[in-house]
């Protein structure tokens, strides 16, 4: 079974803090993704990566950055957290490039910025 794990299920941070969300997959997948999920908006792609040290912006990259130093780990960084970044963050991975390949999701991290 493919397993995608996220470092925290719930996180509370203060405005202005630097926040790291970690994601690890154990199936040697090439591709990894970060989404945020908000009620009524569905999932929106923040960043994705098709290879180590490679990253591409998604639809809403502003206020976020990412790091992929190892194939299995993809980190989402909020340089200076703001209240409008309060959301559910979902990490996903897939075996091959191309969105037709099934994405496997982690359980999510619910981030609250106060």
């Amino acid at each position: 079974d493919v397993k995608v794990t996220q470092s925290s299920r719930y996180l509370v941070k203060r405005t202005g803090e630097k926040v790291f969300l970690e994601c690890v997959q154990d199936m040697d997948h090439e591709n990894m993704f970060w989404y945020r999920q908000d009620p009524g908006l569905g999932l929106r792609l923040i960043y994705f990566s098709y290879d180590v040290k490679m990253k591409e912006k998604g639809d809403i990259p502003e206020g976020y950055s990412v790091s992929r130093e190892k194939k299995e780990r993809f980190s989402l960084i909020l340089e200076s957290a703001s209240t409008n970044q309060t959301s559910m963050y979902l990490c996903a991975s897939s075996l091959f490039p191309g969105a037709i390949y099934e994405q496997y999701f982690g359980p999510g991290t619910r981030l609250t910025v106060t």
Partner: protein
Amino acid sequence: AQSVTQLDSQVPVFEEAPVELRCNYSSSVSVYLFWYVQYPNQGLQLLLKYLSGSTLVESINGFEAEFNKSQTSFHLRKPSVHISDTAEYFCAVIVTFGVQGAQKLVFGQGTRLTINP
């Protein structure tokens, strides 16, 4: 323009009743279509997908979806729902972007299906 639209944010039904969750996509996007399901406190899981071939696709737990090109729809149906089907359901479509033709999934807004006993 929205690439994919789910017309209902919430759908309450009684157990053993039929259900249809509606999804329409923009004619300007690809015709690679997906339904993902998110059970309470879990991540998303792929439920079924249409890439080509038969326009009717089925999942292992009794859901089916039909690709309708003329109506640009990919509605999800189940003839008899169970309490365990309570979840949020997301329709998604592949969009190609950028000069190198990268692909990404674009999700609809989600439909929360609630099954009442």
